[in-house]
């Protein structure tokens, strides 16, 4: 069975991508699994300058999910290029750089720096854990259009725009990204959420609110992929709560061309292998000859 998929002319040998922020720069997981198993690896969110991220606690667990407020801790683009990229390039997988700016100019600058060094760039217009940039831009279709357009102007590699679910109508963001020339969209980033310790009456996250990921958000994510598929023609990369192959299949049926897996990496580092095998067996069992046939094959 051929699991190959294509996004904006870039061929991924399979549709399973490591989600940004959940896989570091691949180094840690490479000690546990062969990270070439992934069709692509999306890096931890990169900013122009090093960032320390948010204060502790940054993580709490809730029913069927986790809330994080890491806040884009990363070593900055220069250190990424010098210290991390050469290592990642040693694997047989595509590299997607996840970039984060606090102004439009920063997004443009990051794209300029990275465009010839990686296979694709994922423009994160959806981080809920920073006060400027991120989701603040990503909630406004005009800003999504403006930033996507500016980034596309300087990009020689395909641009994926990562959308936030924290809006009334995500399809407006998807349309804005497509209109501005995005090559693909990815959704969803984490869902704004909060949890409180009832004994101390303190929020469980220092920043009070954070981003919810994991199984709890999957039905929301599937719905959003489904809605966006009806509105745009560019490929959709779906994610949110994928724990196993069955979850992944739902996303393809809803309209995703590829998927990203995040939180599950923390729990089961071998998830990528199990999900790939599961997808393959499912396609065979159902008589599909390629994954493309499965995309948006929903029966309503």
């Amino acid at each position, binding site marked *: 069975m051929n699991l190959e998929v294509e996004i904006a002319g870039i061929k991924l040998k399979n549709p399973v991508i490591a989600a940004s922020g959940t896989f570091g720069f691949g180094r840690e997981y490479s000690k546990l699994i062969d990270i070439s198993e992934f069709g692509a690896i999306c890096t931890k969110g990169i900013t122009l300058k090093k960032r320390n*991220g948010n204060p502790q606690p940054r993580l709490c667990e809730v029913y069927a999910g*986790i809330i994080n407020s890491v806040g884009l801790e990363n070593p900055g683009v220069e250190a990424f290029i010098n210290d991390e990229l050469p290592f990642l390039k040693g694997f047989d997988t595509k590299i997607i750089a996840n970039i984060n700016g606090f102004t439009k100019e920063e997004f443009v600058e990051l794209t300029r720096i990275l465009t010839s060094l990686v296979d694709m760039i994922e423009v994160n217009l959806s981080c809920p854990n920073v006060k400027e940039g991120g989701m603040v831009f990503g909630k406004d279709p005009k800003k999504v259009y403006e930033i996507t357009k500016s980034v596309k102007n300087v990009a020689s590699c395909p641009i994926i725009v990562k959308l936030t679910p924290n809006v009334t109508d995500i399809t407006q963001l998807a349309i804005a990204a497509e209109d501005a020339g995005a090559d693909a969209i990815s959704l969803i980033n984490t869902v704004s959420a909060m949890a409180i310790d009832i004994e101390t009456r303190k929020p469980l996250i220092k920043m009070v609110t954070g981003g919810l990921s994991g199984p709890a958000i999957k039905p929301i994510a599937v719905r959003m992929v489904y809605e966006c598929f009806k509105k745009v023609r560019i490929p959709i990369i779906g994610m949110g709560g994928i724990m196993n192959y069955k979850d992944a299949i739902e996303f393809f049926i809803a309209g995703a061309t590829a998927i990203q897996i995040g939180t599950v990496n923390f729990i089961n580092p071998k998830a990528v292998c199990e999900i790939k095998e599961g997808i393959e067996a499912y396609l065979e069992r159902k008589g599909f000859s390629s994954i493309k046939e499965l995309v948006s094959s929903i029966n309503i």
Partner: protein
Amino acid sequence: MKLLDVEIEENVKIANDIFLLSFESEYLAENFKPGNFVNILIDKESIYPLLRRPFSISFVEGKRVYIGYKLVGKGTKLLSQKSKGEAIDILGPLGNSFLTDTFDGKVAVIGGGVGIFPLLGLCKELKNRGNKVDVFLGFRDLNSMFLVERFEDICDNTLIATDDGCRGYKGSVVELFKANVSKEEYKVVFCCGPKPMLKAIKNLNLPVKCYASLEEKMACGIGACLCCSIKGKDDKMYHACSDGPVFDIMEVEIE
């Protein structure tokens, strides 16, 4: 570090809300360094608890690995219900170790609450290396005391502090240590316990190196998610799971 499927040998209550679990793993036993921890997936199918849970390796005997834990929430409750023969999925050994150097001489080891668990393996190794070891253990009351005899077997001096004075010194283990430290010439100090305890030790501004094992909430346990960051000196960021859990107490912020 490896993903391992192990079978529980023993999972017994050893004090109020405190359990000792053991299993055989040649790999872990061979690769274990005092201070290391493991990430246990308590129930593969479960979505609550969802994440693995971090626990220190307390000590190792032959191929047998021991982990002590306290009932805190859902995960530890489920773990306590597992019995001999049941399988658990373990990722480890993780983290760094207390022992990066050889210390020739007298060593102080201070532990409070479940922070005492990883110190047993440490004391064993310190003795193996020929050091003199004084251990200071702090417990709440008689019902929450555990592993004391094992420490007594290994260490040169085992000093106990209890909140209610039921045994040993009445008061905090840091006060007990302070009362002794002036008399002794320790080459190095190791500690593990709740943050207020570690903060109090840091505030002693000891004239010797002091290494503390720190806890932060962890998701991946291997340095990928950046959830467990700890601020260090000069704007440096450390990760409790991969740079730690053991740090030079003066090099990190303890909130």
